[in-house]
């Protein structure tokens, strides 16, 4: 990773303790992390600021993660979107819905199945 310019991560996650754990692990790994607690603020941040990675929970207040994902992936609504979007959720989807979400996102992780360190390893492998 380019030490001079840390990669920026936006973590859209309403569970405070989870975002705290993730921020801790990611900051230690050299990422710069911003946290937003709901869909509306998260989407606004993603649209105004430049991020390399967006960690997106699906079950979040105000605007659902699916809606945020759609908006961020719609060039008409969010031009100049370069960030990799990684879904981080504990919500179980119908398989066809999940397949559809996976198609639009750059990764789909079930939070209960990974530790913060495993998340860091996953993000380190991303081509950014």
């Amino acid at each position, binding site marked *: 990773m380019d030490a001079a310019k840390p990669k920026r991560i936006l973590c859209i996650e309403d569970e405070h*303790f989870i975002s705290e754990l993730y921020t801790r692990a990611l900051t230690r790994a050299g990422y710069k992390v911003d946290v937003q607690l709901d869909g509306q603020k998260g989407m606004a941040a993603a649209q105004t600021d430049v991020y390399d990675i967006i960690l997106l929970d699906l079950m979040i207040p105000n605007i659902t993660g699916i809606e945020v994902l759609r908006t961020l992936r719609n060039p008409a609504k969010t031009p100049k979107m370069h960030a990799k979007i990684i879904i981080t959720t504990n919500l*179980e989807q119908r398989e*066809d*819905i999940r397949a*559809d979400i996976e198609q639009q996102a750059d990764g789909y992780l079930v939070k209960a199945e990974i*530790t*913060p*360190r495993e998340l860091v390893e996953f993000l380190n492998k991303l081509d950014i």
Partner: protein
Amino acid sequence: MDFLSKFRRQVKLYLFWVLLAENALLVAAWWAVHTYHHELSPLYTVIGMAVLGLFGTLLVSDAAEKRITQPFITLWQAIHHIAPQGAEEPAPDLNQKQLGHELVANLASHVYQLASTIQAVEKTNSKVAQDLHANFIANSLPLPLIVLDKDEMITYANEATSKYLGKPADDLAGQNVYTALDMSFKSDDTLSTWLKNSAGKTATASHKWEHVRIGLPGQGDSLLFDLAGYYNKDNSLGYETLLILFDHTDVYSQDDQAMSFVAISVHELRTPLTLLRGYIEVFDEELGPTLTPELKEFMTKMDAAAQQLAAFVDNILNVAKIEDNQLTLQLHEENWQNVIENVVGDLNLRAGVRGITIKTDIAPNLPTVGVDRYSIYEVLANLLDNAIKYSKGTDEIYVSALLNKQGLVETSVKDFGLGIDASILPHVFDKFYRNHRNRAQIGGTGLGLYVSRAIVDAHGGEISVNSKVNEGSTFTFTVLPFSQVQGAGKTLGNPDLTRNAHGWIKNHSLYRD
């Protein structure tokens, strides 16, 4: 061309010739009488000329009448021909040369034109009346009714449609049905595949779909319908396809709610699990080097327990999916040795804690297999987890894989522990079934084998067990080589290689933007 003045000129000329002929006749008669009978008295001369003149006039007027009235007769015939009650009157021959030929032809063509206009107006009126009736019926129908033309455009939607979908019917009309409505079907038996198979190929067709989610695109609210489609190729009004929607949201959503209860429970269970695993990791990172071996072991056990709980949560979810027919597999080509070693690597921690070693014996040159990585991982993990739990006192578990005589990849998980009594062996794959004798000593939910069998079944394989009390158990299951899976997928025209518990399904997208 002024047909009328030409006609008048023609009539004038004709009368001139007729009167001239009449006069000539009289002069000729007078001359003849005077020449051959000059001894006749003037009285007889006058009488003779009057008689001759009378006959001549009769002949001439008779001939003239026919000529002069012919145009009126022709027009009369033309009018009668098109009159509602005069259908038997033949059409006059308009090419016949007659006085005022052009004028008559012109007038007759006007008459005909007028008649056809009237006919068209009448037809339109009757159609409008029909439409009004149809509209009234359609709008009185409490069920949503949507009409499509041959290009799958909505030509009509009744009032019930707009009531159910929350959009004025006029806004729906003129739109392509697939862009106007967001429809998701339970399988690849969709409206578009049906129309593709029916449209233009059969004269009429009808079809019914159950549990179709229909809403407006981009809006969360949608309802669950049964959908009936009627296709009619030769509909003169261009109404090719009729769709009738039966709202069954109340009935279907109960199933969905049952599923979402499980989904929400799983979500709520997973959140603390995520935290637990996260904090254990933090402790391990921060304190690991300073911990006594005993505390270090506790930490490892704590993490293993959290992982076990996560696996159990996944099993609950799988049971719900299996029972709701929502378990779907994405089959990919996998190296079977890698899959096994991956699972064994993960389970070794738990086995090691109990002093058990997992040994593998995988035949070389196994073909690649067609499996859903995540699901088949659960099968292997469940079997290994059971083997670990039931190994009691023994310290080895064998995992072997080979290509069997049927050409399937066969995998066995063998332990040397408690074993299963013959009387309960047939029930081990039942839901919630547990060996009563061992219930107190060994944890578990009785879900693992039930889930494993459903997953193996869905892969097109088979699972079985061999066991003897106090000698141990061997669980064996098969999966298909990728070449066979691919062949089946191709035969079914399904490039996505997606299966559920009941066979092949085509992957379809729920969301369309």
